[in-house]
């Protein structure tokens, strides 16, 4: 028998498994697809390790814990440490100033500065360069965790072996809403496009009054374009409006994106608690690790650390939500 059974092979489940195995525990994983894939919302993620940019509209927990992500992921997959560039069209420069006031860890860059960083982002006069940020390819990252776990003898199956089961750690994301009643879905839509004539070397964000739109280079002329945030758990399909907004953002960054091929359309929902922060809860004998919201890759290492400390050392770290029943009835 194993010590722990992890439900879900998304970024939460795989990170928790990786952390537990690294500490000598025996785990197995149950996931309907038996490998990372479209069943988990992390498959559609941007993969930005951008705690400073995210802090603009998030609690300081995201900034603090997010800074652990780069080193953790670099031990398991390829991380590109090239920073983030944030730009705004001339008419939205007040928004850029506000963005700058709300966070730190950046340098202001002017037109020539932007051109030096990203020659294929022409026409912008003002931007912010977050030197310390990084990005990864989410699908490669999930696969790298998956393969490393397999190599270490971790079984990942849809129908687990019978017999005694170790402690269950539920990392099913939005599917755990049957138990986690205050979990909600926040819809996200993204596109994968190919524009071989355009080169970007780091994620570029375009400030928009409503959405943080970004484009992440995946290499070989492929780019991920994301992401909408809608307060709904409907994930059937993208709307025309969302596609227009995403493509307009790309077109604004460089009109040559107008010639791009659309390779993929992704739609899913992010699991989120009311404060949009991840939580670890014990309900009965099961531990739930959930609510990564739009910070799957940024906060999964801290979530995994918190789970490992709880189940192996009985150590209550900050993401552990012990008084949840009390709070829910309050």
């Amino acid at each position, binding site marked *: 028998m194993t010590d722990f059974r992890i439900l879900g092979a998304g970024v939460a489940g795989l990170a928790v498994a990786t952390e537990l195995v690294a500490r000598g525990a025996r785990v197995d994983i149950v996931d309907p697809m038996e490998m990372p894939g479209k069943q988990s919302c992390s498959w559609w993620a941007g993969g930005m390790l951008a705690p400073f940019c995210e802090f603009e509209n998030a609690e300081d927990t995201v900034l603090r814990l997010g800074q652990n992500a780069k080193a953790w992921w670099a031990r398991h997959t390829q991380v590109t440490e090239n920073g983030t560039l944030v730009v705004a069209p001339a008419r939205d420069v007040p928004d850029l100033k506000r963005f700058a006031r709300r966070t730190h860890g950046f340098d202001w860059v002017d037109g020539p500065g932007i051109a030096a960083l990203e020659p294929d982002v022409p026409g912008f006069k003002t931007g912010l360069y977050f030197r310390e940020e990084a990005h990864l390819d989410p699908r490669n990252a999930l696969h790298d965790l998956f393969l490393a776990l397999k190599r270490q003898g971790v079984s990942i199956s849809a129908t687990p072996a019978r017999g005694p089961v170790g402690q269950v750690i539920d990392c099913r994301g939005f599917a755990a809403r049957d138990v986690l009643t205050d*979990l*909600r*879905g926040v819809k996200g839509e993204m596109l994968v496009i190919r524009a071989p004539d355009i080169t970007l070397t780091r994620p570029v964000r375009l400030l928009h009054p409503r959405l943080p739109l970004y484009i992440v280079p995946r290499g070989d002329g492929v780019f991920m374009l994301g992401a909408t945030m*809608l*307060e*709904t758990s409907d994930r059937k399909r993208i*709307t025309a409006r969302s596609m227009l907004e995403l493509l307009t953002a790309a077109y604004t960054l460089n009109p040559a994106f107008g010639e791009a091929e659309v390779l993929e359309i992704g739609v899913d929902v992010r699991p989120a608690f*009311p404060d*949009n*922060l991840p939580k670890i809860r014990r309900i009965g004998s099961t531990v739930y690790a959930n609510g990564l919201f739009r910070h799957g890759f940024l906060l999964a290492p801290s979530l995994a650390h918190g789970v490992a400390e709880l189940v192996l050392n009985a150590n209550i770290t900050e993401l552990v939500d012990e008084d949840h029943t009390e709070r829910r009835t309050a």
Partner: protein
Amino acid sequence: MRAFYGTELANPLMLGTAQYPSPAILAQAFQASEAAVATVSLRREGADGAGNAFWQMIRKLGVHVLPNTAGCHTVKEAVTTAHMAREFFETPWIKLELIGHTDSLQPDVFQLVEAAKILSDEGFQVFPYTTEDLIVGERLLDAGCKVLMPWGAPIGSGRGLNNTYALRAMRAEFPDTPLVVDAGIGLPSHAAQAMELGFDAVLLNTAVARAGDPVLMAQAMAGAVEAGRLAHTADPIEPRDMAEASTPVIGKAFLS
């Protein structure tokens, strides 16, 4: 305070529910400000129906819900959205918003009057988002509206009251109609000014939701609308050109 379709509001602050860092902070902003009305947008978040977790959270705020037709550009869209809103929120209230111009989000007042007539005839209680134009205001009242919500400045611009002359004229022209300054508020002083002009409520969203500390800004706005309301009730003095000493000086001994 004038009643909104028969409903007396405990507080002249109406808050939007978009763009907050999290639903938890949204709820804290409502608690801190004691805002009496929450506006909600159905257009984009409506797809999963009445079970939507976000809407359930809004209901739990225990305030009046004013669904809006944000993002609608045609009468047909706005009417359909209003029908959905009535079904989900079980309220006849609808903030009617018909956008006519992409950059300024200025209301299309011609379509607004048309949609207001249709919805009023169907029994909706319409809160039209309009300009400060007096004739449009009259047409909206003719269409069945019993509330008018002129803009202070374009949505989200935070520029305050662009045309206080016209807003004052509107107050004088429609003495019995509840008036709400909707959109353009950036600072508590803007909100206070609207109340000082005799408006019945102020509706705002971005100024609170996108502030560095939304909860603190919600509190500041609550204080401002209360100060403005009291000041209007207190009958403020008229400005004048020359000083008027508050203590008489005649008969005092002047020593140089």
